[in-house]
């Protein structure tokens, strides 16, 4: 004899799940399945030759090798450069620390095309470091990746480091260990799970890096991502592109599994301390030097490219002026951009708003369904994983999948600009869910029971308890989704119609055009994109970054 309300609750949960599952089914599983179908059955019958071609073709083998190689080196470099930064943020207090920490996060949320433009501005022929000849070089790609992912290591490793009990290090020192020995035998083992988790995330990001490589690598360097794009757009070889996508999918899933294991090991028993007890002002000259050097690295590596980008956007032939910005509304009917680029600002904001709403609904419903399953019914990890998969699967795969799957019945949406916010929401929804789930799980079930006994119906409980408590997290998630959509490039480049370009697409197209005016206009468009993103991120920062959920 089970009361009817249990059934109703189960039905409500099922309905909550149905929406995100249907969304993922149509816009993720179906396109990915279409890619696999295209790759394995190019002529209607099973044919493994495109896959075979990828494996045997020396050039494509080189592409695959380079993809792994650059991701490995980028990850190692990022960890090496950012680890001292994580240490400084975890262990020292200094003036303006909050501001610097917020500034460190900016590159991470910057659109990839902005990062590409900024490094072009610095390393390009006419840039301040142009004499080094690093334009279209491996070094440019690696530097940009470090710039991009510095924040990941500082957040993930620094987050744990700040809570490690410094007295364990003190104990080692008292027992006769030197500084280096203490670090190696006490601190490093404690940090190892966080370092592994951060490295896995950075590896995933750099493995699927697209905009940076397309802009900075030129034709000389290509990864699986850029190769899928080129095979599709330039050579129209869809079976080949599909085969590359399958390879990419398999590799990404393998990386996700390894990353999952690395994170699983994080749950080891450590004596953690409140942040406030573990950091202090630098006292000795050596300590001050450590803090100073790291702040200088942050200023030059992270601040430098952004500053040069802004400077170049004003540096017209006739001196500093708004000339390039004015050009954005005048350049018209170039070969690839059919509307004045300034219209892309409006498009980007409209698409990002729509994508944010969709991502909040999809990610929010999924989060409520996963977290609200009650105390005794632990949800299977299956749904969690399915929901988070688009996060790992590259944006290029999503864009390519849309291109080949949604251009004919039953889902003939090719001509519709609605595909853009849907693709963006697909990338952003897992972030939304990941921000909301821990907050929802932290709500004491007895608060809901107390409200019920006081007369609140289940729907009322949701509105009175769950919703107000997660409201702040919802705002943070919305800011994230908005920023992700603004900067999304990999999927958008496949599906953006020429008459509805987004800002990143405009930047990329302008960079592809010859002439100083187009280059300057690309810089100006990048600065506008960065400014809009910064506003969204500042809104997040107001709700304190430290409180957001797991990555």
């Amino acid at each position: 004899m089970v009361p009817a309300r249990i059934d109703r609750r189960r039905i409500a949960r099922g309905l909550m799940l149905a929406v995100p599952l249907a969304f993922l089914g149509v816009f993720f599983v179906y396109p990915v399945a279409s890619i696999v179908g295209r790759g394995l059955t190019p002529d209607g019958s099973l044919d493994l030759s495109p896959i075979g071609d990828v494996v045997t073709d020396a050039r494509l083998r080189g592409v695959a090798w380079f993809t792994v190689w650059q991701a490995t080196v980028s990850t190692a470099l990022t960890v090496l450069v950012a680890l001292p930064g994580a240490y400084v943020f975890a262990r020292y207090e200094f003036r303006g620390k909050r501001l610097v920490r917020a500034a460190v996060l900016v590159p991470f949320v910057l659109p990839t095309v902005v990062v590409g433009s900024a490094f072009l501005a610095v390393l390009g022929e006419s840039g301040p470091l142009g004499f080094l000849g690093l334009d279209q070089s491996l070094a440019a790609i690696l530097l940009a990746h470090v710039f991009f992912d510095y924040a990941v290591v500082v957040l993930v490793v620094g987050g744990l480091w700040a809570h490690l009990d410094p007295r364990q290090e003190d104990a080692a020192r008292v027992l006769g260990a030197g500084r280096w020995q203490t670090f190696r035998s006490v601190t490093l083992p404690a940090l190892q799970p966080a370092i592994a988790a951060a490295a896995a995330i950075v590896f995933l990001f750099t493995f699927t890096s697209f905009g940076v490589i397309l802009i900075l690598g030129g034709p000389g360097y290509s990864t699986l991502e850029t190769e899928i794009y080129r095979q599709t757009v330039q050579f129209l070889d869809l079976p080949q592109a599909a085969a590359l996508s399958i390879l990419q999918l398999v590799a990404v899933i393998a990386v996700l599994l390894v990353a999952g294991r690395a994170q699983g090991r994080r749950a080891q028993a450590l004596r953690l301390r409140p942040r406030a007890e573990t950091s202090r002002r630098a006292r000795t000259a050596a300590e001050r030097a450590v803090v100073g050097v790291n702040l200088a690295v942050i200023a030059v590596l992270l601040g430098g490219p952004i500053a040069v980008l802004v400077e170049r956007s004003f540096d017209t032939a006739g001196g500093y002026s708004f000339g390039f910005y004015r050009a954005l509304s005048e350049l018209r009917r170039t070969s690839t951009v059919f509307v004045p680029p300034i219209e892309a600002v409006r498009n980007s904001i409209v698409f990002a708003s729509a994508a944010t709403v969709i991502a909040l609904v999809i990610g929010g419903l999924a989060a409520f369904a996963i977290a609200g399953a009650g105390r005794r019914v632990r949800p299977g990890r299956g749904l969690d994983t399915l929901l988070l998969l688009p996060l790992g699967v590259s944006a290029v795969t999503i864009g390519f999948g849309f291109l080949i799957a949604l251009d004919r019945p039953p889902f003939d949406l090719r001509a519709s600009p609605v595909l853009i916010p849907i693709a963006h929401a697909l990338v952003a929804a897992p972030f939304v869910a990941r921000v909301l789930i821990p907050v929802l799980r932290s709500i004491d079930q007895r608060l809901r029971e107390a409200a019920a006994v006081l007369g609140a119906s289940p729907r009322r409980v949701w509105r009175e308890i769950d919703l107000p408590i997660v409201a702040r997290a919802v705002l943070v998630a919305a800011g994230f989704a908005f920023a992700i959509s603004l900067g999304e490039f990999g999927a958008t480049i496949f599906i953006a119609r020429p008459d509805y370009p987004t800002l990143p697409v405009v930047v990329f197209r302008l960079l592809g055009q010859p002439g100083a005016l187009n280059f300057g206009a690309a810089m100006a468009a990048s600065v506008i994109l960065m400014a809009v993103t910064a506003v969204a991120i500042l809104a997040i920062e107001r709700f304190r970054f430290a409180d957001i959920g797991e990555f």
Partner: protein
Amino acid sequence: MLHVEALEVRYGDTVALDGVDLVVEDGEVVSVLGPSGSGKSTLLRAVAGLEPPVLGRVAWDGDDLTRVPPHRRQLGLMFQDHTLFPHRDVLGNVAFGLRMRRVPAAHAAARAAELLALVGLAGYAHRHVTELSGGEQQRVALARALAPAPRLLMLDEPLGSLDRALRERLMVELRELFTRLGLTSLYVTHDHDEAFALADRVAVMHEGRIEQLGSPVDVWEHPANEFVARFLGYNVTDALGHGRVAVRPDSLRIEPDGPIAGVVAARTFRRDHFLLEVKIADGPSLEVAATGDRIPTAGDPLRLAVDPDAVVPLSP
């Protein structure tokens, strides 16, 4: 009037409530006393509608509530750790139940202020609940549970997390409040003093069953079985020559020519008496409450006498 009939609740294979029958008359305070894990909190949760029973019935004045969801039962429940809503101020918490019943805001605010005054927190309406002390949070939780005038107020170890002095003061205040408002109440606790001080009747629970139900005096003087006797601090022994009996430590006297010989094994100071653990020659230990000038110490031999009226025979 609350009727609980043959109520059974299971968590998987564990039986948390095993056929509980209980009646709470209007205006009566019934205390549910038992060790942790005895099912007393589950009983409250089942009455509130938070645990679905596999068998049995909960009814109020003849209306079957068993399938009524918690928000329509018009009962009040005060949780063990107060569970105030952290995103609402004191007024928002106290007025919550009134809002759920669609009481107009002005009326709700007035009623909430009235209840805050009743629990001694007048003027706290706009304080943040996280700024309050443990005792203050407890009072707010009580005001919140009382505000919608529930027909039955259930309290789950309401004083459990407070320090001793505060607990004793709030116990007196609660007793006053129960009498003044004529509340019908179910009061769960593991503390005898609380149960006996507050309740008209006491239900002693063990392993999901009510072992004994009666007035505090009746339960205290005539424990129904070995479990209740031990739980209330009785010695349970066969060594007195009356079969299996229960006897309180203060009913055993030290007398030079008493019939029972023993040796003091340990001595503990207990404010108004010493508690002696006395090893009996051919049996287990007995606890003896000793007062006076000459308290034997560990190792001393002694003889004990017992008042025959204080011996409670236990059915085998």
